[in-house]
Structure formats: structure tokens, C-alpha cells
């Protein structure tokens, strides 16, 4: 039984065709990340799965049951929003229990679930506080807690970390990964941040302009992208693209470029980023500016003449339309 299956989902707002023929299945317990640039339709797809938007056409099944016409509360999903979306007039307990109360659960069940979720998220000390009296990280934990207590078949996260600062983002990312392991639940997670996608996902779905570009595990997509868009979107710094003689494009990842006397790409260093563990060089060559990622610390400085080389086995070839040539 699949956790989620989407068949030919289309969604239009008036004349704007936002989602185009989306087909996807999510296995039970899987962590799937939707990633893509802003405006590509990730949130719309998530909201369509949740039932907050009606699909213009197509079929949605959650846990084997068709739910295309089912209201959000009856779909067996829970959602965590970027803006937390906590009820401002309710305390933490009230926020987490509202859904259970609406579903008519008994007090015993509610108390037990609140206890478990509060413990899991270290929220015990804050149960009587209003959202206004919590920090951003705590609010996001309450929002996650509100999802957990519903014991959904499917968790939906819409850019839950975007409003947090960098340190908290890392910590919360680890926490979400831990929750996924502990709950063993199916999760769909939307982000425009490829690092979040790579670090959290069992499987990544890359979206662009309302279409699925490619689906696969992070390493499958990184090592074997189907097209130039996916190749360029995943990986930081992103892949270098240079024109090839055949009229298409060559792609080389920054870590596959080396400084070598036997190389074929002479150029001048225009910028250096020293990160301690890595050194990133921007090198201006006849083929354009290329990013080189060197491991460890290196003495090169702006203005140095260098020659870049690469292993032909690590070169990706794309045709004029950006499709991968294998």
C-alpha cells in the first residue's frame, strides 16, 4: 500500500497552468523532498495533496484511499507551515489539541498524545504559554507537535525552516530527521534549499515550472542527472557549464576541476573563498567563469594564472535543449 499516489494532477488558477501532469508515488515511511526554484509550484502541489486546493484534474490517493474530493481534515494528513500558523489565542496545549478535539477524541487519548509529543519535542515547560511568548524555534516545534499528535498517514512540511536563523535551521533539520526515524511516518517536505533536500531526503523530486524534472535519491540525482536543470540545481557550488564543440553543453562539477600543468583550460583567478576545509576559486577562462572547489587550504590568490584540468570521465554532456546525452 502506497502512502501517497498522484495520478496526472493538473492545477490551474484561471489561465495560469501551475501544475502539469504530476505523477508520483510515495512509499510508507519514505521521506520525500520537493525541491525547485521559488514559484515552480511546490506549495501549490503540497496544498493540493492536503486538499486546501482542489486539483483541476487527476486523482490523489493517500494510504490507498482515494481522497480527491475529501476535505483536508479527513485525509489523514498533517501540515507544518513556514509561518508556523499557530492559533494566537490558544496556549501550546490548545494549539496542539484543537484538531483532536474537533475529531472528537476522548480526553484520555488527547492527554496521552500531548504528553508523548511534548516529551519528544522538549515542550513540557511551555505547555501553558501563548505563541506570542515563544521564540521562533519553539513556535516551529509547537507547529510540528500539532502535526504529530494527529498521528497522520502523511506529514506535509512547507519550507518549515525558512524563518529560522542559520544555527537553528541546522538544529531543527537534525530534529526533523530524528522525528522521521522515531515515528517512521511518511513525510513530504517542500524546500527551495538544495542542502535541506540533499540532507533530509530518501528521495528528491525536482520541480520546475510545474513539471517534475526528475525523481531519485539524492546521490542518484547528484551523480546521474537527467538534464542540465537538475545538474545545475543540486550541488553547491553549482555545476560549471561550458559550450561544447558539438553545439551542446558540457557540465563539470567544481570538485572535478583541478589545477594541473597538463590541463586544457588556462585562466586567471578572479575570486577566492577560503572556508578552511575547502577553497573555492573563481577562474576566468576563454569558456567563461568556472568555479573550482579544492579540498583543504591552497595558496592561490586573485590575479594568479592557473591551468585547469579535468577527468573526461566526470564530464556530463547535454544537448541544445539541456537533455543529458549519455
Amino acid at each position: 500500500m502506497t502512502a501517497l499516489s498522484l495520478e496526472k494532477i493538473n492545477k490551474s488558477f484561471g489561465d495560469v497552468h501551475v501544475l502539469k501532469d504530476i505523477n508520483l508515488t510515495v512509499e510508507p515511511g519514505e521521506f520525500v523532498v520537493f525541491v525547485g526554484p521559488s514559484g515552480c509550484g511546490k506549495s501549490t502541489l503540497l496544498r493540493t495533496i492536503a486538499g486546501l486546493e482542489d486539483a483541476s484534474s487527476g486523482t490523489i490517493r493517500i494510504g490507498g484511499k482515494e481522497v480527491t474530493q475529501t476535505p483536508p481534515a479527513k485525509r489523514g494528513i498533517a501540515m507544518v507551515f513556514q509561518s508556523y500558523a499557530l492559533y494566537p489565542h490558544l496556549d501550546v496545549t490548545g494549539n496542539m489539541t484543537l484538531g483532536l478535539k474537533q475529531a472528537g477524541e476522548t480526553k484520555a487519548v488527547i492527554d496521552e498524545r500531548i504528553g508523548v509529543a511534548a516529551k519528544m519535542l522538549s515542550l513540557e515547560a511551555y505547555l501553558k504559554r501563548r505563541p506570542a511568548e515563544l521564540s521562533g524555534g519553539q513556535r516551529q516545534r509547537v507547529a510540528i507537535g500539532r502535526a504529530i499528535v494527529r498521528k497522520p498517514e502523511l506529514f506535509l512540511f512547507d519550507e518549515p525552516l525558512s524563518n529560522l536563523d542559520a544555527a537553528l535551521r541546522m538544529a531543527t533539520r537534525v530534529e526533523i530527521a530524528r522525528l522521521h526515524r522515531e515515528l517512521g511516518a511518511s513525510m513530504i517536505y517542500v524546500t527551495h534549499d538544495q542542502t535541506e533536500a540533499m540532507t533530509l531526503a530518501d528521495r528528491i523530486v525536482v520541480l520546475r515550472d510545474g513539471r517534475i524534472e526528475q525523481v531519485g535519491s539524492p546521490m542518484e540525482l547528484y551523480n546521474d542527472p537527467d538534464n542540465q536543470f537538475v545538474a545545475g540545481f543540486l550541488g553547491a557550488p553549482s555545476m560549471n557549464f561550458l559550450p561544447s564543440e558539438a553545439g551542446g553543453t558540457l557540465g563539470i562539477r567544481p570538485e572535478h576541476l583541478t589545477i594541473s600543468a597538463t590541463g586544457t583550460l588556462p585562466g586567471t583567478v578572479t575570486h577566492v573563498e577560503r572556508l578552511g576545509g575547502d577553497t573555492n576559486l573563481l577562474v576566468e577562462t576563454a569558456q567563461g567563469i568556472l568555479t573550482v572547489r579544492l579540498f583543504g587550504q591552497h595558496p592561490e590568490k586573485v590575479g594568479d594564472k592557473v591551468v585547469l584540468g579535468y577527468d573526461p570521465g566526470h564530464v556530463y554532456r547535454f544537448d541544445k535543449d539541456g537533455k543529458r546525452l549519455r
Partner: protein
Amino acid sequence: MHKARHSPLNSIAAHGALILWTVIALFPVVVILINSFKTRQAIFREPLALPTGESFSMIGYQTVMKQGDFFLYFQNSMIVTVVSLFLILLFGAMAAFALSEYRFKGNTLMGLYLALGIMIPIRIGTVAILQMMVATGLVNTLTALILVYTAQGLPLAVFILSEFMRQVSDDLKNAGRIDGMSEYAIFFKLVLPLVRPAMATVAVFNMIPIWNDLWFPLILAPSEATKTLTLGSQVFIGQFVTDWNAVLSALSLAILPVLVLYVIFSRQLIRGITSGAVK
């Protein structure tokens, strides 16, 4: 920059302006109040003087009380104002929610149509309204006044409230939907509390014109049993003699309930602002 705003000079200037404005705004009210406690001669001889032992008189208030039905007028005004405000806020908020929340054909057109009422004074339709009230047998009832005032207040209410409701986070409403709240629950429990400051504004804007209106009570409900306070006070203003003591006393009394309502709403207004939405 930040310091400059707190400099004593600026603060004095700001307070000076505010005090001046307060004095100008309160002046007529104070004149009415002090003169309502004076004898007729004293009112005309020295209108700005405070009542002294010699000029003090309650004659105006005695006349007003003796006029008999004055409490009934009070009650009528109160019923009409409170019920009209309630209906304006309820229906205004509901229409605003529909306009701001749901996508449907003609949404924009409907919004424009509702906003049109802001620009067209309802009194233009007085004759038609009177004909309708006669036809429905509502002449000389408080219901007639309530209906008219509700219609009069709705356009601005819808306009202001829908602007505010557009700012209520979609995520919050969607969270409610996922938690199984009905659209009514989302409206009453999530959205209304967040637009409370706007509701208070609408209430205050509508309250004074309704309370003070003379036009529609005179035309639609002039009977003894349905007279409002403003209309009732007119008995003291004659074509040849005006009982100024009574007029001033009646006006002073008429201020009180409005003041009470205003205090209620302004409290709500402040509470609404301080409780604030959580981003």
C-alpha cells in the same frame, strides 16, 4: 535620528499640538455641559462662566424628566444604535470574509458594488425607503430604523474589514481547515479576533451618526412610542420659543451613553492591537 524623536523640544511641541486639539474638540461639549446647570438668564448673560451658587439651576433636567417619555426615547436610541451596530459588524464581517477569502466569479464586481454605497448617500433614497416601509407596514417601528442604519453602515464596514481580512495569514486559516474547523469556526474563532481593531473602528465610525440622526427617525418613526432621543429633544425647540435649559440638559444626557459605548469599543481596540497576530 532615533534620539531626535525623543528630544524634549519635540515632545513639548507634540503635546502642545495635542492639548490644543483636545481643547478645541472639547470646547463645545464643555459649554453644553456647564450651561445645562445654569439658569436661563445666566446662560445668555455669561455663556462661558461656570455655574455659581447664584446661577446654578437644575431646571433644565427637571423639565426633561417631567417630559415623561424621556427614558423611553433613551431606550429607543439605545436599541436602534446597538442592534444596528451588531448587524453592521456581523454582516459586514461576513461579506468581507467572503470577498477576501473565496475566489468566485464576480468577486471584484461584488466588492465594487458594495463599495459604491460609500459614495452614494442613503438619504437620496428616502422617498423609496419610505414607500417600502409603508408597503411592508414597518413605519413607526424601530425595525425600520435598524434596517436603514444597517444598510447605511454596511458599505464602509465591508470595505474596511475586507482590507484587514486580506492581511490575516492564509496559513492560519489553512491550519484551521486541516484541524477540521468549519468555515464558520475559522471565521468566528480565528479571523474575527484578529480583525478586532478594525471592528472597533467600524463600530465607532457608525455609532455617532446613528445615535445623532434626526432625518430617518423623523420620517420613518415619529410616533411617540418609537421616538429616539434626538427626535424627542426637538420638542424643546419651538418655532417661537426654545427652552434652552431643557435642550442643553437633554444634549448632556445624550452624550453619556455614547461615551459608555465608546469606552467599550476603545478598550476592545486597544486589546485587539496588543494581543496582535502571531507571524
